[in-house]
């Protein structure tokens, strides 16, 4: 038997090596472990909720939210001013640009007519 034939036979045997394989058995305490994990998960959420619901923490969160809101209001007011000046600048720029453009356009027409 040549080496090639031996390898071919080995491949066939390998491909058949899973035939008749028995099902692997799970850990008999799987359910207990699942329950423990589910309880840990529930406890973690309980911990988060009980922490948030402490009066000091709740008031601190409320103050932070109010501060953020106040800052947002203040910055939007300041933003309006900036936006106003921006739009002013923009219109000035547009006017200037239009003028230039029209001049260019006019010049161009003049050039072609010449």
């Amino acid at each position: 038997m040549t080496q090639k034939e031996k390898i071919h036979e080995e491949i066939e045997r390998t491909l058949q090596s899973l035939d008749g394989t028995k099902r692997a058995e799970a850990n008999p305490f799987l359910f207990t472990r699942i329950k423990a994990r589910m309880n840990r998960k529930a406890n973690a959420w309980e911990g988060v909720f009980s922490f948030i619901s402490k009066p000091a923490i709740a008031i601190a969160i409320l103050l932070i939210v109010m501060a953020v809101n106040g800052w947002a209001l203040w910055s939007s007011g300041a933003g309006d001013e900036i936006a106003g000046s921006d739009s002013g600048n923009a219109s000035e720029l547009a006017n200037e640009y239009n003028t230039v453009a029209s001049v260019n356009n006019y010049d161009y027409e003049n050039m072609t007519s010449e």
Partner: protein
Amino acid sequence: MTNETELIEQLKQGDQTAFKTIVEQWQDMVYNTILGIVQNETEAEDLAQDVFIKVFEKIDSFKGDSKFSTWLYRIATTTALDHLRSKKRKKRFGFLKSMSGGDGDNKDQVADFHHPGVSLDNKERAAVLFKAIEALPENQKLAYTLHKLEGLSYRDVSEVLNTTVSAVESLMSRANQNLRKQLEEYYNKHYR
């Protein structure tokens, strides 16, 4: 079947006894399926726990359009594949791996997974085969594992993979071709 339907209904009500019965009834099936895909006993046990927690949390989404076992196989295979993908991502970006030159060619690594259900005289060959299975594309790997390790018919595999029987036949044929090719390379290097 009626018993199964009752159990599912009870589980939908949050019945812990029904949940325990479901876990005990299907734990080997779930564990064996995941083990065949991830090829690591510790990871397979953790993932089997994940699967049953998902079953408990998502049982309301089971409408009975498919068999419960099919639904369970789908959760198990998806969980196992997600795990492999995240492991692959971690490996790809692993600093130490890149420093040592990456994980290299899969085929040259030692075949080290031994499935507990394989007979002793097939142990070494099965380990080589598992190494080759590891390198198969996802769908071929699923079809091959479900058919060979779980003993599912092509029809059952097609239900789990949500495809046709002929598609499963094609997957199995390509899986066998790929495995032959890989084994040929392996034995050309290692056969004594």
